[in-house]
């Protein structure tokens, strides 16, 4: 009985985290982006500095008609948003927030599992792009596929570098072995992981697959109402998961002063700082062209991640 209670409690906490933190990141994006452009952002919803803006947006999306195009592949079209969103919830279960037992399920192959499941999330966009029966959606879907092919490799290689350094693919194991000198040691890998992760999430400046001014939001063109909201939520959940993973693999996760008690706080702080960087990059940089996107992955990120693996191997053997 006690065991069940604990499981339910853990799942409720994770679900709460999953529902709340992406919204906080979304609100942060509203506000940070506005101020970076000399605006105020939402100020009315909820009274105090528009804190309830995203809740209001959610209510609006729920009221909208959910349209499925006549020529669309109905079943695939309808489950695509769930395929995009759910993997991030599943990933959260295995991510250690603090030291010891502050993790949903401590998996021995945690890193492997997390990266595999995150790859599934991108499939949602592909499915949506293919099933919409719309040329812009199809273009977006194909661009997503090209981007997935190009950026999955540097992502995996740089994560593998950390696993090599720790000698384990368990996320807890990696954090237990973490030392401060990993920070300079793995910094190139961290850069590659974060950049490739951004590209995988199709965040600006790597948002060629959605490119709203060019192919009208790509795979999401035909989506309305709650399904569209799920795609948006998946984007922000993806940001949270990417920032959590970057923080854990390359910034030491819960390590920091008083980490025995405040480990979870360190994880959250690092995650939010990274999420701020994600927003900052979006505001500062224009969109990369498709060929620039591919060139960055194949001629910069993959060689860099291979060099990182070589460095990790050399230091490890010495």
């Amino acid at each position, binding site marked *: 009985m006690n065991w069940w209670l604990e499981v339910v409690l853990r799942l409720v906490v994770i679900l709460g985290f999953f529902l709340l933190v992406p919204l906080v990141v979304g609100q942060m994006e509203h506000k*940070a982006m*506005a*101020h*970076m*452009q*000399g*605006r*105020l952002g939402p*100020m009315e919803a909820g009274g105090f500095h528009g804190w309830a803006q995203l809740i209001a947006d959610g209510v609006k999306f729920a009221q909208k008609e959910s349209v499925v195009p006549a020529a669309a592949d109905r079943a695939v079209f309808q489950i695509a948003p769930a395929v995009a969103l759910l993997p991030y919830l599943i990933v959260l279960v295995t991510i250690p927030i603090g030291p010891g037992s502050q993790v949903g399920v401590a998996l021995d192959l945690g890193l492997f599992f997390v990266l595999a499941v995150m790859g599934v999330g991108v499939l949602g966009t592909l499915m949506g792009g293919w099933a919409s029966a719309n040329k812009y959606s199809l273009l977006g879907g194909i661009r997503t596929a090209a981007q997935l092919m190009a950026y999955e490799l540097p992502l995996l290689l740089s994560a593998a570098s950390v696993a090599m350094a720790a000698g384990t693919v368990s996320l807890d194991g990696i954090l237990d072995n973490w030392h401060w000198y990993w920070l300079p040691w793995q910094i190139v890998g961290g850069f590659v992981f974060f950049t490739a992760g951004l590209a995988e999430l199709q965040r600006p400046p790597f948002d060629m697959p959605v490119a709203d001014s060019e192919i009208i939001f790509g795979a999401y063109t035909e989506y309305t109402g709650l399904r569209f909201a799920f795609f948006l939520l998946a984007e922000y959940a993806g940001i949270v998961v990417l920032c959590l993973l970057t923080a854990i693999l390359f910034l030491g996760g819960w390590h920091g002063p008083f980490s025995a008690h405040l480990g979870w706080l360190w994880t959250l702080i690092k995650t939010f700082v990274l999420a701020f960087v994600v927003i*900052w*990059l979006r*505001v*500062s*940089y224009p969109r990369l062209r498709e060929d620039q996107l591919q060139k960055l992955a194949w001629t910069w990120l993959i060689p860099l991640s291979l060099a990182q693996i070589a460095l990790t191997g050399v230091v490890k053997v010495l």
Partner: protein
Amino acid sequence: MTEYPGSGLVKGLATTFKTMTRRSHTVQYPDQAPVLPPRSRGVIALIEENCTVCMLCARECPDWCIYIDSHKETIPAPPGGGRDRTRNMLDRFDIDFSLCMYCGICIEVCPFDALEWSPEFEYADFDIKNLLHDKDRLGQWVASVPAPVALDDRAEEPKEVALAQKAAAKRLADSGRAAQEAGTPGPEGDG
């Protein structure tokens, strides 16, 4: 200064971050009154007494949004003599602000300054018919017409002022001469 590769990327990040630390430019309009530039074109005010129903404004209006009706009245001759005179009485002066394009030609063309710009702009309405302002409504805007903007430093004086000053100076000189003549009677005056 040499440009390092990627320095543009850093500059981009610095620009957005610096902007974030500064105050934003947003004016929260309904709560905070906007600072309007001088000579703002909000609404057209009608000073009814000045209008002579010459119809210049209605004829010059590019989109024909001014409607004027009038009739003639006879003013009887004053008791001392003379003849009866007729004058135009304004019955209707409407401006349809759903058509008006705020060009200001009517104001420029009015020979008697019966029309003026007022900076008031909050007269949006739920019914387009209410955008047809009649002469009473147009007259209410007169209170909000600002004083003319001061001239630039060392600008030429307006023609009217120069004329008035010339006239005043002439009158002053005349009265001075008269007073001189009255105040210093010559010895031959006595005789």
